[in-house]
């Protein structure tokens, strides 16, 4: 369920970044919307139903279309169904927050969202996600249920950041023509905005907007709550707590530690040498495999 909620928020963030680029740098809009669709892993579904990458068409596809299983509305419905199934595992506050969110979104996304209302809708999504997360952190027992919730968030985040890098990796490659030069404004702006790190990058990184600095920030920086390293650390720690609580180490513990080992103590140069694209593809595959292993280890699949 928390994977779903995290995904809804990530999609809102992608839309927000794409929307802003479309408004402020309009000659990039079409290409930008296409990469948003690719990043959200819904290109096939999108192209089965739509032609071209018109901004309001893309936004509505991502926000509310029922045939898109990754639309915010579909996701929230799934999350709320999950919460109902496991109602006893959640505190009343978490349940209220999830249920309210679903009611609110059903109303908000009932009809196509006109361009004029997009910023307002995105603001509500962000606010509701914060509310659910706050209820989770503030009221839940720190037991296995909480660990599974955190695990879901971390895995979804890891996957999302990896996909963003994967779609934009070409712009982060230090090609001979811009070694040491500054990245194209629009490219870095979207990458950083998609992970809500537009401001924190300037604070955290004592470097200008160069390709290695941004790649390093998104992949290896341990302070950045959406970096691959941060998420992998979180996943390994949560699985460790579960192993302690259940007094049983599972294959997923090993997988998580292998994944973390690929990130801990690395420097960005060695990743570029290995090939940024290949590296990120492997991370995406490994994360998916890990998620499957967790389902198996803890019998989520029945």
């Amino acid at each position, binding site marked *: 369920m928390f994977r779903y909620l995290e995904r809804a928020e990530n999609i809102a963030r992608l839309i927000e970044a794409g929307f802003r680029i479309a408004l402020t740098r309009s000659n990039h809009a079409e290409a930008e919307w296409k990469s948003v669709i690719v990043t959200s892993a819904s290109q096939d579904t999108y192209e089965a139903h739509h032609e071209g990458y018109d901004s309001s068409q893309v936004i509505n596809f991502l926000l509310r279309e029922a045939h898109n299983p990754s639309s915010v509305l579909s996701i929230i419905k799934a999350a709320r169904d999950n919460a109902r199934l496991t109602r006893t595992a959640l505190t009343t506050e978490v349940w209220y927050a999830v249920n309210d969110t679903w009611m609110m979104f059903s109303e908000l996304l009932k009809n196509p969202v006109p361009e*004029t209302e997009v*910023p307002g809708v995105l603001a509500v999504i962000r606010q509701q996600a914060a509310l659910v997360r706050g209820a989770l952190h503030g009221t839940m027992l720190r037991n296995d249920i909480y660990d599974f919730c955190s695990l879901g968030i971390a895995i979804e985040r890891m996957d999302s950041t990896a996909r963003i890098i994967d779609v934009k990796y070409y712009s982060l490659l230090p090609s001979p023509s811009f070694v040491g030069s500054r990245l194209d404004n629009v490219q870095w702006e979207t990458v950083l905005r998609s992970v809500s790190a537009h*401001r924190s990058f300037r604070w955290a990184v004592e470097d200008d907007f160069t390709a290695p600095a941004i790649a390093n920030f998104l992949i290896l920086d341990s302070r950045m709550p959406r970096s691959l390293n941060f998420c992998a650390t979180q996943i390994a720690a949560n699985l460790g707590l579960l192993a302690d609580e259940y007094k049983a180490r599972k294959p997923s513990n090993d997988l998580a530690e292998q994944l973390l080992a690929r990130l801990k103590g690395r420097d960005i140069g060695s990743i570029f040498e290995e090939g940024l694209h290949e590296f990120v593809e492997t991370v995406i595959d490994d994360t998916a495999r890990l998620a499957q292993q967790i389902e198996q280890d803890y019998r989520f699949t029945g």
Partner: protein
Amino acid sequence: MNSKVFPFNEMRSDAGARPPYDYYDAWFSAQDNQRLAQKAAEAEAFFRRTGITFNVYGQADAEERLIPFDLIPRILSSREWTKLSRGIEQRVAALNAFLHDIYNRQEILRAGIIPTELIARNDAFLPQMMDFTPPGGVYTHIVGTDMVRTGEDDFFVLEDNARTPSGVSYMLENRETMLQMFPELFSTIRVQPVSDYPKNLRRALEASAPASCTGRPCVAVLTPGIFNSAYYEHSFLADQMGVELVEGHDLRVVDGHITMRTTQGYKVIDVIYRRVDDEFLDPLTFNPASMLGVPGIMDVYRAGNITIANAPGTGVADDKAIYSYMPDIVEFYTGERAILKNVETHRCSEPDSLKYVLDNLADLVVKEVHGSGGYGMLVGPAASKAEIAAFADKLRARPDNYIAQPTLALSTVPIFTESGLAPRHVDLRPFALVSPKGINITPGGLTRVALQAGSLVVNSSQGGGTKDTWVLDD
């Protein structure tokens, strides 16, 4: 000048919308007034939430206030802007050359272009800056040039703000607000972005670091503190640049460098963007009672170990008597005629001018040469007989303290009111960044608008508001 002449309306002429407003005008006509009123309320909530408030000096219950924001944008074509920005670039370059000259060889005085007493008797002139060149040779890193318009092609510079121009945070937040409220406009009308300003500011400051700095320069914003009327802007700029916001008591001189207190001890600062006035900058050099500055910073500065932006003593150029010489100043240093026009200015220090001014007070605007913020001025056409008579006495007592200008028919841009559009007078403050690497001007700037019908005073401290300023990308 006859103040009853109809002022130039930038949005609509008799023939309909002026070209830059074509699309906007059509869009606006299709809007429902009630919805726009709703949007205006949303905008206010947005500003409250962001905390873009200011304090008014001299009000006992110092409650935080909002500068009123009007949701009708002020729109300039790219052709109009190109000409303005070329003019600003020329003027800003000349200002820097002038300041360097005044504090070094003083060739402009020797050439007899500017009377020496104008500098010698200028309170903003700092002898401590003589025979010293700031790092990179830049005096005014951040300049706000106040412009007014009276006709299709008639733009005038009203004043130069080379000291500490404020308002840039409103330029940025006004755009953010408009993007949130009217995204549909931006997807049709291509407006040049302004959001790179904080990044460009940081780059300009870093590029101006002193030679003593190796590695990436450490930049900080120095604020007088939370009670300053522009505190929001100081915190906003530091935040957006990703640099520390400091107060005087956070800083001290260690081993000949300015350092700031951090949780891990004192850290060297290379460039300080100060929003503290010259007078309060260093109690050892200037006002000894100042609690806002850093004792010893001027020694560090003269030793070449810190960049102060803007440099101390740049206020000389803000003087309104100096302003009247700007066309000559531009020509003297650039060898070109000034692209931007000055408003015709009478220096009351000159007997003929004083006589003319006294005879025509009812039609003129009279300003103190060192004044700012719309304080201490007389707007002849709006003043009562008694006010004019009282001001004439002040003039006769200290003529060299005043300059006078004709009352310009400032252009108008409509504001939104419950009963529809209403024309109001506006000015424009574009922001220029200067570094050894060049001059960067953000497209547009801050449009200030007088909210009272007929009023010519746009200052926020006197009830003015602001608008988002669009430069079209075509």
